[in-house]
């Protein structure tokens, strides 16, 4: 696939589905009665999986790979800093770190059109925001509950939004964001803006009933949505095999005729290439895709989780052999990118994260009057 496949916002209508496509796809009972259901021969259940298998890794330029590396390092250093601030008591309550999963958000979202395609996720949301170019300062300030935070301190780690970037949260209730994602996709289609929605959820959330109600509607109405299961192996303390009858999450759309794709979420180039395949399908007006990104979180579920449900060796093995940042770094070196160029990025990111932390520590708490703002349109 050509590198220029990434669509631009300049003329979103060019890639829009047919006008009034939503109205047309709302089921017409008489048509349904008279025409047979699409038969299995034409059901391309595994076509995307095969397309990805044929061409596994994205052919990134050095500059692109450096950019992926930089974004992944930003997420990791940001999350490490957040962990430190939590330890110092500057961040309270719940804080879920994305360390280990960086290649997922970076690989997928680099294929999206930031500010045009919408993204929605659960509570482990810092990485998705950073991958979408949102300023680390206002994210960190939200974590510390300051007025300068992106939700003015009232949302906290799990509840953050940016309409400017079309980032729709940041949701603390497991799985609840998936249905919202279908609504975003419906609106993209209805408004014919050519955008798609990327809706992330975890292996744990994949067992919520509303996820399947959403699958059915999204497929029925051919909504432009990419469902992304970030399978990090553990729903809090419950290993996938202890909580899921079907542990291959990419198969879970089969009953709704949604094609699935299993993807190695620890290799940013594989992730990016999978995104290319998925997005081509979705942008073509074919309806949803279900991607399963196999990944791993190095830290506990949240800051209060000692992660005793898995062995230290298991975590170390992932860190040593599958780390997405180390993998990208080795690839850069192999291509002949200088160690200095990589070090420069590391240094720049450290400064950026330090500045974000300073900002988050020194900004004041929100004004007391903020308690009653944004509850309803009116103040009362």
């Amino acid at each position, binding site marked *: 696939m050509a590198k220029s496949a990434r669509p631009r916002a300049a003329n979103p209508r060019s890639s829009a589905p047919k006008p009034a496509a939503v109205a047309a796809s709302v089921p017409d009972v008489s048509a349904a009665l008279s025409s047979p259901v699409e038969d299995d021969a034409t059901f391309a259940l595994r076509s995307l999986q095969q397309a990805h298998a044929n061409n596994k890794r994205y052919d990134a330029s050095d500059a692109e790979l450096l950019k992926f590396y930089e974004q992944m390092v930003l997420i990791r250093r940001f999350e490490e800093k957040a962990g430190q601030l939590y330890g110092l008591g500057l961040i*309270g*309550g*719940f804080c879920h770190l994305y360390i280990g999963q960086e290649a997922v958000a970076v690989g997928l979202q680099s294929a999206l059109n930031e500010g045009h395609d919408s993204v929605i996720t659960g*509570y482990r949301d810092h990485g998705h925001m950073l991958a979408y170019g949102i300023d680390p300062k206002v994210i960190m300030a939200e974590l510390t*509950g*300051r*007025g300068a*935070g992106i939700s*003015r*301190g*009232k*949302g*906290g*780690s*799990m*509840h953050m939004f940016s309409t400017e970037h079309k980032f729709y949260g940041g*949701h*603390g*209730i*497991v*799985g609840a964001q998936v249905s919202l994602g279908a609504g975003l996709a419906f609106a993209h289609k209805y408004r014919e803006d050519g955008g798609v929605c990327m809706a992330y959820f975890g292996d*744990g*959330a994949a*067992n*919520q*009933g*509303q996820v399947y109600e959403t699958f059915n509607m999204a497929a029925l109405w051919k909504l432009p949505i990419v469902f992304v299961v970030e399978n990090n192996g553990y*729903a*809090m*303390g*419950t290993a996938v095999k*202890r*909580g*899921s009858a079907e542990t291959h999450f990419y198969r879970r759309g089969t009953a709704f005729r949604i094609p699935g794709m299993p993807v190695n979420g620890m290799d940013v180039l594989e992730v990016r290439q999978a995104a290319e395949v998925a997005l081509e399908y979705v942008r073509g007006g074919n309806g949803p895709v279900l991607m399963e990104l196999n990944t791993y979180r190095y830290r506990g579920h949240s800051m209060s989780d000692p992660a005793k*449900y898995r062995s230290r060796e298991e975590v170390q093995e992932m860190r040593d052999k599958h780390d997405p940042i180390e993998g990208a770094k080795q690839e850069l070196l192999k291509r002949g990118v200088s160690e200095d160029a990589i070090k420069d990025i590391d240094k720049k990111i450290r400064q950026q994260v330090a500045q974000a932390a300073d900002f988050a520590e020194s900004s004041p*708490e*929100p004004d*007391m009057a*903020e*308690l*009653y703002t944004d*509850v309803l349109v009116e103040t*009362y």
Partner: protein
Amino acid sequence: MSRRMTMIEAINDALDVTMGRDPAVVIMGEDVGYFGGVFRATAGLQKKYGKTRVFDTPISECGIIGVAVGMGAYGLRPVPEIQFADYIYPGLDQLVSEAARLRYRSAGEFIAPLTVRSPFGGGIFGGQTHSQSPEALFTHVAGLKTVIPSNPHDAKGLLIAAIEDNDPVIFFEPKRIYNGPFTGAYDRPVEPWNKHADSEVPEGYYTVPLGKARVVREGEAVTVLAYGTMVHVAHAVCLDKGVDAEVIDLRTLVPLDIETIRASVRKTGRCMIVHEATRTGGFGAELSALVQEHCFYDLEVPIERVTGFDTPYPHSLEWAYFPGAVRIGEALDRISKD
């Protein structure tokens, strides 16, 4: 025989005692088995009673409660845990339409003897999805009982009573006081339970009956109605201000011990209601209406309600939202005038 316990230990002990006595009792929920619960309420129980009686469920609240209703109808006594009260809403349909009405619509042939345990309330910087107090949603539903303990002794006795009860019980556990009573002094270290009289918990089996309030402190000046964490907060403010308050811990909201409330308000002529949940349509509104109906001619001043604000629970400004010493103190001043 008795020993000192935290709320968590007392709840764990209640589960242990009921499981030991009745093989129909089963525990289910997200991370309750292998992991022992995020707040450790079910720690050690899977090891002791096995995976058939203490088991992990997927993250599927609607399914968890629905399955528990079916288990209950067929003679089991399920105790599902909903990890946070904020997660209970997907299961609301099953609670409202099935659990609460099974007895009624089967003319008493089928029952739903489940006890849904769930940590609730704020004070731990949980923000809007880990801090809510949704008790009024459940007290509004005919056919459900709603229980909220405020200390280890009651937590154990009430939980055993709830599990043995043949009706569905929503058992909300104030998570802020799991490991120590909380007087609202958020900037001071947590006081452990073992310094508190109510952490003395009898060994083995006993119950605290549902529908019986407890007078925590007798007094003449004003009746304070509270439950859960707010019992401790309100009590501490009354002591600080030297108000001779009669502090009543409701313990169960449905069924409600109106007799104890009536006797107290008749004596004091003043009534203050404290809860952490939002104000409009909160359980305080029901209490206020009941006190007015039962004690109108005894009231000397209007009833005071001190509650959470009618806003989502904020991440920042948590202690401004929390109905703590300042707001309770002001209400006490207003109600004590004349």
